[in-house]
């Protein structure tokens, strides 16, 4: 059994940093025991890199955890290869973002190998506000999600060296997704914070599980307007990036041609994140190091919401599905399991305690009228 504390301590002790996100922590908690987790970290490219580049071959640890029981074998560096290491003179950038922070940091690192890019998600920022308020001034450039413009945690008006980027939200592939409020905050379904608007509306309308599953068809999607999201979502996305002086129009054409570029309504796939990073790099430096390499897609650890086959069909896509991938696991649920799991979870509260998140009211009301 690996606890959250174990994961954080292992990261701090072996990698000299915190896990990049809650999703990472949850994923790592799936290890059978602590040794299994350590083995994975010791075998990671990051650890290998850090141990080779740190002083004396040891990473300076923050806490005095036990040293690794089986040190990884040291590999001889090829004399012809000069490793691209962090140099004191390298400029340092900090990315402050949401779930896309890791993807952006890794992408920016590929695009600007002579810059040291670090990340801090908005949750870390609010948790350690004093630490970050002190540290932010040491970065040459800040790349900050525009939701933080009016942040009370950091007064970003003090800094001129900021490139803003917006939250990436695009719901046309997943028009059924929504958040639901409950007395404890955002309600968690079997898909973590993601809920199905159809399932929630059906639950609130006292439909049975069988009746609810019947709602997932072309007639209903057409009736409740699921096929009508595209133009509005596209326009909104372009406008949000325009507000940050980032023109995604040409990129968007490529994303659409590549198929579904979203894991869910607010989790873009890594190629999309990379293209955003490219726009950011271009804006800051007027250049980038083109590479065929793309970083790993860390957001696949999180929940992946399927594009319903009828909706995929509208967009010429082949990969429609009713399989729901939950947070931190690759065991997918079928539609029936998702409906049953959602209904069970809703039952922990009184019906009146569950309310649709305001952003999704329009869709929810349309469904309630339709069914």
């Amino acid at each position, binding site marked *: 059994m690996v606890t959250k504390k174990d994961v954080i301590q292992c990261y701090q002790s072996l990698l000299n940093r915190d896990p990049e996100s809650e999703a990472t922590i949850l994923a790592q908690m799936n290890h059978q025991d602590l040794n299994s987790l350590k083995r994975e970290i010791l075998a990671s490219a990051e650890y290998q890199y850090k141990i080779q580049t740190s002083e004396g071959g040891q990473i300076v640890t923050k806490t005095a955890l036990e040293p690794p029981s089986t040190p990884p074998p040291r590999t001889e560096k090829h004399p012809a290869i000069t490793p691209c290491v962090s140099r004191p003179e390298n400029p340092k950038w900090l990315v402050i973002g949401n779930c896309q922070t890791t993807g952006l940091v890794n992408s920016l690192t590929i695009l600007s190998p002579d810059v040291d890019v670090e990340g801090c998600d908005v949750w870390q920022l609010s948790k350690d506000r004093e630490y970050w308020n002190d540290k932010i001034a040491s970065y040459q450039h800040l790349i900050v999600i525009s939701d933080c413009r009016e942040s009370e945690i950091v007064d970003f008006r003090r800094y001129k060296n900021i490139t803003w980027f917006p939250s990436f939200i695009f719901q046309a592939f997943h028009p059924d997704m929504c958040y639901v409020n409950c007395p404890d905050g955002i309600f968690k379904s079997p898909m973590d914070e993601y809920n199905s608007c159809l399932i929630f509306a059906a639950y609130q309308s006292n439909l049975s599980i069988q009746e609810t599953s019947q709602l997932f068809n072309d007639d209903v999607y057409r009736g409740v307007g699921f096929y009508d999201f595209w133009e509005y979502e596209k326009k909104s996305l372009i406008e949000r990036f325009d507000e940050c002086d980032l023109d995604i129009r040409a990129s968007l*054409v490529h994303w659409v041609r590549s198929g579904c570029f979203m894991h869910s309504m607010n989790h873009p796939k890594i190629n999309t994140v990379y293209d955003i990073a490219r726009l950011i790099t271009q804006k800051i430096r007027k250049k980038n190091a083109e590479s065929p390499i793309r970083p790993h897609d860390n957001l696949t650890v999180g929940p992946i919401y399927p594009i319903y086959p009828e909706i995929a069909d509208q967009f010429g896509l082949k990969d429609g599905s009713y399989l729901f991938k939950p947070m931190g696991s690759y065991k997918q649920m079928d539609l029936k399991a998702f409906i049953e799991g959602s209904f069970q979870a809703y039952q922990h509260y009184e019906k009146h305690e569950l309310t649709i998140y305001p952003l999704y009211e329009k869709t929810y009301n349309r469904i309630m009228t339709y069914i």
Partner: protein
Amino acid sequence: MSNPYKGLADFQFWRRAVSTLDYHAFDPVVNPKFQVSKSDCVATAGSCFAQHLARRLASMGFNYYVPESGEELVGDERVARGFGVFSARYGNIYTTRQLLQLFDEAFSTRITHEQAWLRSDGRYIDPFRPNIEPTGFKSAEAMNAERGRHLKYVKQVFLNADVFVYTLGLTESWMNRVSGDVFPLAPGVVGGSYNEKDYVFKNFSVTEVSADLKLFLQKLKKVNHNVKVLLTVSPVPLIATYEMRHVAVATCYSKSVLRVAAEMAATEFDWVDYFPSYEIITGNFNLGKYYADDLREIHSNGVSHVMRCFMRHYAEDHYKNITRYNFNTKVSPNLVSQPICDEESIAKTAF
């Protein structure tokens, strides 16, 4: 400075109509000549691709006209024996010569001479629809009797259809040297026996395809004054060519001829329209996404794109304004199924 291109519509410019467009929004249909109402009798014929269109039209609630439906048969047998695949049980009508020949035979203005082909298992098949009866016929007489019944239904299709959808499929064909009868498959592939004395390969020219199509349309209009015709060209590449050239080159020739013939017919007759499903499936805007893994069969997402454009331009009022869901609504069945194609027999037997 005057410029004749100034002020033209967006669809006339590649950049505006293709390059910068989301690929699922690509829509090459401009100024359709007529509308298809829910009450119109819609009949279909043609190549394998026409089967996709036929199935979708039926599932979308159009009045898909199938006089030879085999409704007394159970589901699997009905499909296996080619009932309901098209409006009548004529199998694939790949060439315009074959279409013209069928019309003439149905209206007794020309007699086909080819006799039943003997199969290696001792059963007989119909040379003009060789895969229609999987178990074959016990005798040539039985085949002829069944063909006689079939032709009555064919006649009904031509007489009663309000809209006749025909997909031009091939230019390559096999012909009886003496009678001029043409076949969807070469003799010897699934039945009969090939010999150079009786049979000859024929790759129709654009002049021949166009003339056959024009003649068919004129004859059809003569027996059915109200008919409207929607022509499409099959985007499915040739499974094989008998020409001594690369199959891709042969495909390009064949589709080009069919496309020109369709254009000429649509230009000449105001009741004939060309529907650009070929352009939707083959267009580079979709990066080949509408083909299956063999890069020949059409994936259902491509058919869906075709049907979206069709519905938008030819049946705009089709989706009635439903304000409340009926839980007793029958959900449309899965539309992904393989078409039955005579041409497939060539690849299966050519080893």
